[in-house]
């Protein structure tokens, strides 16, 4: 999938920006705070219905404006054209998404239609942050490739919040009863086992992609691996019924503890993704450099995995990665992007970028200043 053009209206720094996108690599140069990342964020709205880093839609509205609109023309791998419009109104607190002018009622249903892979400084948390950061990583990947997973996830989160509320109130002594908990257990188990099973399956499917991507970036010598540590002790070899039985048993065992702590202690929301290099835990033993290599490998693997699963080439968004990665890694990554479909890159230092890109000129270059984007011809700048 590729974007032909992207428009931003009163979106963060951009009053009215129109970008005719190159179908290969697009690079946006500019100083910090000028509005480079905003462009990638707008693309994230088109693909994932939300920003890849900000949690609130309201913050994406340009100061003093009542809402924003992001529109695009996208072309799928088999050359079908789509018009996508995402608009948000601050007053109505409402986000609307339309594809080919038809409003999409269930916004989550467009996730996966226009697959995207994002590598941004915030992603560093995937390897070095909390288990929640890693769960978010796999949730975004699986959601894009499997719609019922996303639906299960949305329902599971809702059930979890409701159930935690019952436990919290029972801890506070406001209401105490197993009867009130029970109606939530059944679907917690059903949806939860489904999610855990799907994640276990994903980890197995994803492994070869990761190994392959790691070799592309770091060469041979280090063997990465990804494992899934489920709180309901499930793995890919179990049937869904068995996973449910495990879940039920764990829940039963934690009953007293849950009442005491006032929160749900079992389920996919407690799961952990384990990254290793040569059998050693990345979290405990890896150097900064290994963390970065692993992260880039995860993202490259995500790209190939999604392309396979969605039967559609994802768009790649690289936000400020060249200030994070050292010279050789930047060069490897940039060289890789030549074969990864459409890519949107932001960079502050044009000199560094040019070094890393080995002066190649097959990049569409843009300058971003105070929310205005100017297209610059590649040849002029590389000379």
């Amino acid at each position, binding site marked *: 999938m590729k974007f032909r053009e992207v428009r931003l209206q009163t979106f963060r720094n951009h009053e009215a920006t129109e970008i005719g996108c190159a179908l290969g690599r697009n690079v946006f140069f500019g100083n910090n705070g000028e509005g480079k990342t905003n462009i990638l964020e707008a693309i994230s709205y088109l693909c994932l219905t939300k920003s890849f880093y900000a949690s609130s839609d309201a913050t994406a509205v340009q100061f003093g404006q009542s809402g924003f609109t992001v529109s695009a023309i996208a072309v799928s791998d088999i050359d079908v054209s789509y018009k996508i419009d995402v608009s948000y109104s601050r*007053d109505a607190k409402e986000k609307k998404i339309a594809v080919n002018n038809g409003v999409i009622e269930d916004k989550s249903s467009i996730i996966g239609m226009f697959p995207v892979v994002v590598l941004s400084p915030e992603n560093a948390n995937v390897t070095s942050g909390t288990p929640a950061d890693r769960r978010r990583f796999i949730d975004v990947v699986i959601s894009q490739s*499997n719609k019922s997973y996303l639906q*299960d996830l949305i329902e599971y989160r809702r*059930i979890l919040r*409701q159930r935690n509320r019952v436990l919290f109130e029972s801890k506070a002594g406001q209401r105490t009863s197993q009867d009130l908990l029970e109606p939530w257990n059944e*679907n917690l188990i059903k949806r939860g086992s489904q999610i855990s099973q799907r994640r276990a399956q994903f980890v197995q499917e994803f492994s070869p992609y990761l190994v392959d991507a790691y070799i592309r970036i770091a060469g041979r010598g280090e063997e990465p691996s990804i494992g899934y540590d489920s709180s309901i002790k499930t793995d890919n070899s179990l049937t869904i019924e068995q996973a449910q039985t495990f879940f039920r048993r764990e829940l039963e065992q934690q009953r007293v503890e849950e009442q005491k702590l006032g929160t749900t202690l079992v389920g996919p929301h407690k799961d952990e993704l384990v990254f290793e290099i040569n059998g050693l835990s990345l979290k405990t033993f890896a150097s900064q450099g290994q963390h970065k290599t692993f992260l880039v490998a995860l993202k490259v693997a995500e790209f190939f995995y999604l392309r396979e699963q969605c039967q559609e080439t994802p768009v790649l968004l690289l936000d400020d990665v060249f200030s994070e990665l050292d010279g050789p890694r930047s060069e490897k990554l940039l060289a890789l992007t030549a074969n990864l479909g459409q890519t949107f890159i932001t960079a502050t230092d044009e000199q560094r970028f040019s070094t890393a890109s080995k002066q190649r000129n097959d990049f569409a270059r843009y300058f971003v200043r105070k929310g205005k984007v100017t297209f610059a011809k590649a040849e002029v700048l590389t000379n």
Partner: protein
Amino acid sequence: MFYTAESIEHLAEQFAQLPGIGRKTAHRLALYVLKLSRDEVVAFAKALVDVKDKVRYCSICSNITETDPCGICSNPKREQTSICVVEEPNDVLAIEKTHEFKGLYHVLGGALSPLDGVGPEDLRVKELLQRMSDSVEEVILAMNPNVEGEATTLYLSKLLKPLTVKVTRIARGLPVGSDLEFADEATLSRALEGRITL
């Protein structure tokens, strides 16, 4: 948007409180009211007050009604052996339109939702249990197919099952007249989950 007339602002304010009405629409409605004749406005206002004065909840099924018991509960032609439990009065209307169901209703007044502070005591659960006399043979649970509706279904079925009454739930599945290939994944997977033996 500020109009010079305070009463227009005031009316728009009232319209804006209605569900699905935004600020702009509220102003348009307010200006529309201004164009109506006085009689029309009085009739409109009276209709609003009447709703509040005349409509009440049926003492048996808790549906909205002007007569107590409501038209359905007092109709001898309705089958007294089955009760369909729904969340809101709207749901009664929806099921009535099908002309498929000839029994009685029970309106719960919502669904379990601890996050919104709705527990069993906030719903008309006790009233439902009180209606479980010998003549009731089947209770059909027709909650919304969402997380809260599911939990309410499970909660009620647990309460009702010991009462030797047949407890059923409405099926979840595919919309009639559509193609399988166009169904969304979630609906399709739920339909698979709820498959029945032929």
